[in-house]
């Protein structure tokens, strides 16, 4: 609460200073949660099209990991995952769309950085996908670690942080490599495909998507090593702490849902469970949802809308999806990954 008061004080000061900033602060002044409830639909900013994360089919229906997060938030608020208006945004206009109030929430494979919070006045509600730079190699190369890549020919997109990370990684490990840099990702993949290089480096999620474009995806493997941090997560404006909290706790609810064994298929059973932590999750006790301005069953409703974290992951990115990305870091802390959500209590 203290935090919220401080933030409001700061935006009030900003209002005195500049009329333009006042306008920016307006959507928050009304309270995004109230605005969303009155409007009857959540405006959710997603990618214009990214394999597994957000895609629109010929019938106009959206699907993907980021899309399912939007639906979970709508589920938590309205108990209806259909009450979302998806707003496709490019990398360059996404932050302005959020700041101006065109969207309530950005769920668009966006990396959490200091600059984006402190510089742009945004707040990351958590991490729902730990991405990072990795390596794809031809299976015939018979390598299973990035530390075995001494002397490799590496294809990389020119002028990216990826290229800089690549240089750092090989230098730090006293390994040599020959670099083949291309201005576009399509050219980079083509060079890998025609054997100009035997290693391709990009963020892991992108590597899995690129692999599907190969004539024989099974000929290439993605090494388990991750050499940079690209934490992706949902973003809100920094000046509406109660709304930020709603989004944050929906993210935590999905992770806790997996940990507790609450699935899309068993929400009715969960509501009748005798386990104390499941009872708090379902809203049967604890009165937690009300504190967020939601129904006490908000967590259960989020899972009902999209499934728990594991279900969302498997449906869109996991081994039973086209992408087949191993859970890796995005596994529960208790199962070999780093997903850790504070308790609902």
């Amino acid at each position, binding site marked *: 609460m203290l935090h919220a008061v401080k933030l409001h004080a700061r935006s009030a000061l900003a209002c005195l200073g500049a009329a333009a900033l006042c306008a920016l602060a307006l959507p928050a002044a009304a309270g995004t949660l109230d605005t969303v409830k009155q409007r009857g639909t959540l405006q959710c900013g997603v990618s214009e099209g990214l394999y597994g994360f957000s895609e629109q089919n010929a019938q106009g229906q959206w699907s993907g990991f980021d899309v399912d997060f939007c639906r979970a938030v709508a589920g938590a608020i309205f108990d209806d995952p259909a009450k979302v208006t998806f707003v496709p945004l490019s990398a360059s206009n996404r932050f302005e769309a959020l700041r101006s109030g065109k969207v309530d929430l950005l769920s668009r494979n966006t990396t959490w950085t200091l600059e984006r919070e402190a510089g742009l006045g945004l707040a990351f509600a958590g991490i729902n996908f730990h991405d990072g730079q990795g390596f794809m190699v031809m299976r015939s190369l018979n390598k299973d670690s990035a530390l075995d890549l001494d002397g490799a020919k590496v294809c990389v997109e020119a002028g990216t942080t990826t290229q800089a990370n690549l240089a750092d990684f090989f230098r730090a490990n006293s390994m040599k490599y020959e670099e083949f840099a291309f201005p576009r990702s399509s050219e980079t993949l083509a060079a890998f495909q025609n054997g100009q290089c035997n290693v391709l480096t990009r963020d892991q999620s992108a590597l899995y998507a690129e692999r599907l474009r190969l004539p024989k995806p099974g000929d290439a*493997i993605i090494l*388990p090593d991750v050499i940079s941090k690209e934490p992706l997560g949902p973003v809100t404006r920094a000046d509406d702490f109660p709304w930020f909290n709603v989004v944050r706790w929906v993210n935590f609810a999905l992770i806790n849902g997996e940990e507790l064994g609450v699935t899309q298929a*068993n929400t009715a059973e969960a509501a009748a*469970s005798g*386990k104390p932590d499941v009872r708090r999750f379902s809203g049967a006790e604890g009165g937690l949802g009300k504190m967020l301005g939601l129904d006490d069953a908000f967590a259960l409703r989020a899972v009902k809308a999209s499934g728990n974290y594991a*279900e969302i992951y498997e449906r869109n990115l996991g*081994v039973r999806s086209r992408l087949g990305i*191993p859970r*890796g870091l995005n596994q529960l802390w208790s199962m*070999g990954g780093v997903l850790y959500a504070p308790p609902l209590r």
Partner: protein
Amino acid sequence: MRMRDLTRAVLAASCLSLSLAAVTWVPASAQGSAKGSEETMDVGDEPGRVSGDDVHAEGPYAKQMVLFRSSEAPGTVVIHTSERFLYIVQGNGKALRYGIGVGREGFQWSGKVQVSRKSEWPDWRPPPEMIARQPYLPRFMAGGPGNPMGARALYLGSTVFRVHGTNQPETIGQAISSGCFRLANGDIIDLYERVPVGTKVIIRHSASL
């Protein structure tokens, strides 16, 4: 504990196939872990069907090195039943991962054990409950390529649970009606070479309500 004793009684000498009737004996709490989003394929055993040294060479259930953080010592085997994966911890934040098929019995128990014994081309004695359900099954079947136990078996502690091969490699990645933890024959042969007697094995389910 209760579960273990019960299952031992039901399954007698073999971990393969448990009759549907016997499933009603399973306490609700244990059964819950096999439910949820799990679809169980009701695949009967096919003794006599010969399958070679198949490995899962492609796709998500192919053996591969993956990122896996663990405080367990390198060499430890970790089985995640809901994911259908078996991991050998490598240290350095990695593990070698194999796709597995998990039978009803495999979902009934979680815990820590050691590999107590290893066997090449294990024999098979279907318990009476299985024979009641699948009367065509032999009373005894010597180990070999047509044996549902597959090419190798790792026995887990003093339980009836084991990690074994299969003559039905298409069941990898599935929740199936019978068996504990089964790997394609080529993969169990590979695993067998890497896992000595005495290896710690940790079996984890997803949580149940």
